[in-house]
């Protein structure tokens, strides 16, 4: 077997339809942490997920999960269309503070007229326009995180000064959609910048991915297709002056391990040939249906082919499928030496192999000195 060049990264969604109490989410988060996964995700939308259905604020849920876990990254979906960039920056920074450096956020936009009516301030807008705005939000949010230098707090009794105000900065952001003065209320979070994720399944998101994302989930049903998309995203990121390794590309896969140890594709509902374990599903990630061992084979194959940096899995029945994924698939990958068996680092950036970013305002201040 060829030795893969990069570290394998694994993340799991812990969504639960109709789950409104904390223990459900804590249990799944701890399970994922037992599997030493890089991070868990929780989806969100500005409005209800569907008619007659509800969901809790995802960032709130993961803040509740934070003290009940120790190492795993926490990545809620956060929407940018009807929310205030300043508040958003504060909330994600705070998730990073309460988790001691384990926060990320997945950028999402709100495209529907129904969601626009919940706020009543602007009509629904084209998706491309909303993603352009989301890019501006990601930009200003990162600036607000940098608006406090790490050593701004001095507590100098002799001069009576708590902070060195030369190390706090106005961001004075003026975009096409909004302006923000700054500085932030929340000091620079432990990771400097919490991790930015984007579901890059629609090319309309790619400019935002290329500029701002640390992690992108892509939709592909073969390693060849995945590799092509990753190359394209990395090429675009390079064009913005970013390093190729700065973007972690994960294949998004829905996982149904209900058939136990059976061979992949043996379920009548799958419709796919046995050698084609991923079924393309419109609107969502491809579906894997089969056993945990075969899923480990699939992950090993894609990883060995160096097609992606890892996988973001969405368990179809979270309690059951995540348990089988961790105790079956992950255990096997660990046994083969393809996946970590403990967390060597403390922060989500550590898990992803991302360095703590320099503060742009500190660099500017040093430059003019």
């Amino acid at each position, binding site marked *: 077997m060829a030795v893969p060049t990069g570290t394998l990264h694994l993340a799991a969604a812990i969504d639960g339809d109709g789950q409104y109490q904390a223990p459900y989410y804590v249990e799944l988060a701890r399970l994922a942490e037992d599997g030493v996964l890089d991070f868990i995700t929780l989806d969100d939308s500005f409005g209800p*997920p569907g008619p*007659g259905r509800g969901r809790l604020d995802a960032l*709130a849920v993961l803040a509740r999960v934070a003290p009940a876990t120790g190492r795993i990254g926490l990545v809620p979906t956060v929407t940018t269309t009807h929310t205030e960039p300043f508040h958003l920056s*504060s909330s994600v920074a705070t998730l990073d503070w309460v988790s001691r450096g384990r926060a990320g956020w997945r950028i999402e936009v709100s495209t529907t007229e129904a969601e626009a009516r*919940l*706020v*009543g301030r602007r009509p629904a807008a084209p998706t491309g326009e909303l993603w352009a705005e989301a890019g501006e939000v990601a930009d200003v949010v990162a600036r607000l995180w940098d608006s*406090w230098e790490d050593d701004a707090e001095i507590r100098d009794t002799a001069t009576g000064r708590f902070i060195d105000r030369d190390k706090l900065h106005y961001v004075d952001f003026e975009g096409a959609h909004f302006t923000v003065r700054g500085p932030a209320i929340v000091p620079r979070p432990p990771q400097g910048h919490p991790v930015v994720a984007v579901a890059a399944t629609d090319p309309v998101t790619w400019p935002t991915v290329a500029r701002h994302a640390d992690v992108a989930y892509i939709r592909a049903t073969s390693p060849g297709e995945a590799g092509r998309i990753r190359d394209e995203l990395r090429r675009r990121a390079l064009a913005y002056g970013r390093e190729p390794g700065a973007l972690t590309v994960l294949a998004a896969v829905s996982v149904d391990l209900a058939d136990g140890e059976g061979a992949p594709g043996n379920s009548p509902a799958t419709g796919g040939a046995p050698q084609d374990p991923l079924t393309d599903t419109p609107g969502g990630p491809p579906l894997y249906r089969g056993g945990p061992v075969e899923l480990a084979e699939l992950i090993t194959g894609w990883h060995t082919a160096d097609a992606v940096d890892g996988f973001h899995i969405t368990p179809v029945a979270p309690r059951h499928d995540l348990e089988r994924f961790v105790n079956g698939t992950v255990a096997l990958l660990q046994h083969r030496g393809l996946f970590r068996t403990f967390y060597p680092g403390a922060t989500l950036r550590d898990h992803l192999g991302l360095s703590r970013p320099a503060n742009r305002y500190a660099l500017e201040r040093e430059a003019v000195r």
Partner: protein
Amino acid sequence: MTSRPRQIHLAAHFPGVNNTTVWTVPTTTPGRGASRAPALGSQIDFSSFEHLARTAERGLFDFFFLAEGLRLREHNGRIHDLDVVGRPESITVLNALAAVTERLGLAATVNATFNEPYELARRFASLDHLSGGRAAWNVVTSSDAFTGENFRRGGFLDRADRYTRAAEFLATARELWDSWTPDGTPRPFAHSGDHFTIGGEFGVPRSPQGHPVVIQAGDSDEGREFAASTADIIFTRHGALEAGRAFYADVKRRLARYGRAPEELKIMPGVTLVLGDTPAEARERAAEIRRQQVSPQTAILTLEQIWGVDLSGYDPDGPLPDIDPDPGSQLAQGRVRHGDPLAVAAKWRALSEEKGLSIRQTVIEATGRQSFVGTPEAVAAEMAEFVAADAADGFILVPHLTPGGLDDFVDRVVPLLQERGVFRTAYTGPTLRDHLGLRRPGEGS
């Protein structure tokens, strides 16, 4: 058989970003006091919030309270640098605290001017679910364009519009919280008013408390009326007995107009306290805290906030300036103003002349915020008397140290309040409404 004495409600305020919060090491250190002084902890690390919240829960407090800031304060065009500054976002911290506490109420201050009802109603309903019915919202408003510069909606409201927006905001949030049936079916909502015209389906089922507890912190006539019409708790500044009694009577009288009973609105002044083994030790410690709160630099800056001009050339240990304040000055930004500068200056001059006080001594004397100073026995007696005399239903305690500022109170005063029969010895229910004796909306009283 005597009737049960009036029960006290208690809340813990996380130390704020103003000079009430001491961050310097004491300059004078009376032996025992210093050795018992809790370490000066971080204002931002989660461990500080966890410490204070766990302390409050150990003391069986009703709730834990977080203030809010949306723009860093400025002085003379620059960011104010003398006080503790920087804090996490409140609702997110409270969701995390729900993991390390079981019964304690969790109150966040959130501005109704720079938020929208749907989003905020969703966030508070989520907190109420995740904490098992312990959420509270302190509704505040803002009218300054200075803060608005951080928000896409920008701008600001006339003073008069602040409460109409807040009232409509809260009424709208309650329409959303009521939109799901108790058995878990969402019903469409539609709201059309001066400030909000929205409709659709609310995305969160009815939460354990029905509506999170609502706190109101305004002191003006409109603020009192708003509280009387719709709040569950009013957070006041009236920490002195006579002023407290007048305020209490005024606010409770207003309730009848809205068909509400006096016990449906709890009046809780924000208070500070200083404990000592003897009255003299408590007084000495209180004076030391005041000196820490008002450094020489803070004394000059406090004066500048009133005078509205640069006074950096003045000696903090010298006399007050003989020039008059500039009432139209914009020197201080992002700070709540109290009173007319000319009148305050005249009062301070009179105080300084009468007692022969320097600038710093005058500021220490005139801006005192220490409500209860004494032995644990004396403080417990005074608090009980305050409530028995209809000056308050309880207190929001504002410690001057992060995060250990209530350790002594919980260890030494709470047991005495319990002995007096004026404070609970166990939580009787799981929700904040249970602690406060407030019924769930939609249920009979």
